[in-house]
C-alpha cells in the first residue's frame, strides 16, 4: 500500500534498532567506496552484505532490487569505458573500434561500488519500517513535522496517484483527448491538473485540521506506542561501526 521497500519479518536484522542499522549501512557504504582493488567492493558484498541479508531473510529481494538498479549501469559502463578508454591494451576490435582491458577493469570496479552503495541502502530500507526510522529521528531531536512528512508522503503518494488516475479516467470519459501531437497533449493537461491541485488544496486544509485536533502541534511531553528495543550490545556495536568506518577511511587515505 505504501511506497516502501520494507518487508515484515520477525527476526534477524529487523529486530535491531534503526540507529544500529543506520550505522551498519554507513559502514557498508564506506567499505564499498574505500576498499582498494578492482574486486574490493565485491569482496565486501560477499563477505558482509550477503550474510547480513541472509540473517534478515531478505537476500532474494535485495538481489532482485539491486540487480534492477545496477545492471543498466553495468552494461553502459562496460560499453562506454571499454570502447572509449583512451590508451590501453586492446582485447578485441572491429575496424576503428577496440575494446580496452583497462576500460573493462574500470567499469567492473565502478559497478562494484554502485552495487555496494545500493545494497547498503537496500539492506536498511528492506528491514526498517519508515515509521520506526521517523520515531528514531524524532527521539534524537528531529522536529515531528519533518518526520511526519517523511512517513506521510510515502503513504499518501499512492493515494494521490490513484486520484490522478480517477480524474484522468473521468475526463477521458467526457471526451478529453490525451493522445496525439504535443499541442493536443499540452492542452489536455489543464483539465487534469486543475481538479487534482484544487482538490488536494482542500484536502490539505482538512488534513491540517484533523491533525491539529489530534494534538499534532501540542506542546509538552509525548509518548509512543511503538517501542524500539535497544540493548547495550547494540550501543557498543554502533560505536564499533563508527570506529571501523573511520578506520577504513583513514586506511584508504594513508594507503592510497
Amino acid at each position: 500500500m505504501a511506497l516502501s521497500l520494507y518487508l515484515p519479518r520477525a527476526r534477524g536484522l529487523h529486530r535491531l534498532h534503526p540507529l544500529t542499522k543506520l550505522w551498519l549501512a554507513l559502514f557498508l557504504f564506506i567499505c564499498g567506496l574505500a576498499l582498494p582493488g578492482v574486486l574490493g567492493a565485491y569482496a565486501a558484498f560477499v563477505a558482509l552484505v550477503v550474510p547480513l541479508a541472509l540473517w534478515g531473510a531478505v537476500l532474494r529481494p535485495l538481489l532482485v532490487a539491486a540487480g534492477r538498479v545496477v545492471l543498466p549501469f553495468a552494461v553502459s559502463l562496460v560499453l562506454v569505458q571499454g570502447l572509449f578508454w583512451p590508451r590501453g591494451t586492446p582485447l578485441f576490435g572491429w575496424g576503428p573500434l577496440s575494446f580496452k582491458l583497462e576500460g573493462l577493469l574500470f567499469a567492473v570496479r565502478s559497478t562494484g561500488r554502485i552495487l555496494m552503495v545500493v545494497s547498503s541502502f537496500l539492506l536498511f530500507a528492506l528491514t526498517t519500517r519508515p515509521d520506526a526510522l521517523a520515531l528514531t529521528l524524532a527521539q534524537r531531536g528531529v522536529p515531528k513535522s519533518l518526520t511526519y512528512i517523511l512517513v506521510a508522503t510515502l503513504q499518501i503518494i499512492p493515494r494521490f496517484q490513484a486520484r490522478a488516475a480517477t480524474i484522468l479516467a473521468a475526463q477521458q470519459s467526457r471526451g478529453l483527448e490525451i493522445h496525439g501531437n504535443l499541442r493536443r497533449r499540452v492542452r489536455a493537461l489543464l483539465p487534469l491538473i486543475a481538479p487534482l491541485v484544487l482538490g488536494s488544496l482542500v484536502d490539505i486544509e482538512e488534513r491540517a485540521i484533523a491533525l491539529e485536533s489530534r494534538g499534532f502541534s501540542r506542546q509538552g511531553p509525548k509518548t509512543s506506542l511503538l517501542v524500539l528495543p535497544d540493548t547495550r550490545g547494540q550501543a557498543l556495536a554502533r560505536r564499533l561501526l563508527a570506529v571501523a568506518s573511520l578506520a577504513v577511511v583513514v586506511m584508504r587515505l594513508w594507503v592510497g
Partner: protein
Amino acid sequence: MITIEHLTYTYPATSRPALQDLSLHIPAGQFCAIVGANGAGKSTLCYALTGFVPHFYRGRMEGRLQVAGHDIAVTPPSALVGLVGLVFANPFNQITGACYTVREEVAFGLENLGVPPAAMEQRIAQALALTGLTDLADRSPFALSGGQQQRLALAAVLAMQPRVLVLDEPTSQLDPVGTREVFAILAALAAQQDTTVVLVSHALEWVATHADRVIVLMAGRLVADGPPTEVLTRPELESWGVGTTRYTQAARRAQAQGLVPPGRPLPVTLSQAVAFWS
C-alpha cells in the same frame, strides 16, 4: 458545557457573517443535533467549538464562546486537544498517513497527549471495541472501506476521551450501512451521558431517534431550538431548507386528507409513527 452569547463571526475576505448573534447553552451530557441548509453556518459553528474559528481561519469574532470552561477567543485548538474532539465528513482526510496500522492510528492523538503506553493500550482497546474495529486493529488504515475509516476516525477521537464531541456531517459520505454503524456508536455514546455530543447531520430520522435537542440554523442565525418532536414537525422546516422525516410527511398528508383525526401529535420516529397510525 457550552455557552455561546451573541456570537458573530465573519470569515476573512467576506462581508456576510457566517454566524450572526448566536446565543446558545448546551449542558453537559446532552446530545444536541444541528440542522440547516448549506451555508447556514453549521460547519463554522463546529470549527468555532473546536477553536479553529477564529484561530485557524482568522476572521472577525464578536461575542462570547465558552467550551468546557475555556474562552475560545483566547484558547487555540492545541489547548483544547483531549477536551473537545472533532470528526468530519471525509474519512480519508482524517487518516493521519503517519501510521501503518489501525491501532497506531488510534494511538496518534494519545501519543501527542503524552498518555503512558500501558494506559494507551487500554484506551485503544476500548475505542476499537466501541467502534467494532477490534478485528481490524493490525490492518493498514488505508486498506479499510469508507465506513470503516470513518469509524476509525471516530475511534481515534473517542480514545482521547473528550468531554465534548463535535461531529460535522460524519455520515454524509457513507452508504446506508456505514451510516447505520456510525449512528449506532453515537447512540451508545449518548446512552452513557458522560460526553456532550454536538452533531451536524442531514440524516433527520437518525437525529430524531437519538438527539435530545435539535437546533436549526439559517443564514448564520438560530431559527428553532427544542426537542426533536417539536422542532422536526414545524411547518417552516421546508422553507429553512431542512426538509422533514418521511414519518412526518406521511402523517401530515394523512391529516390533510382527513384520514386521521386532527390534533394528534405528528411523528418524527418510527415508534412515534406506529403510535400515530394505530
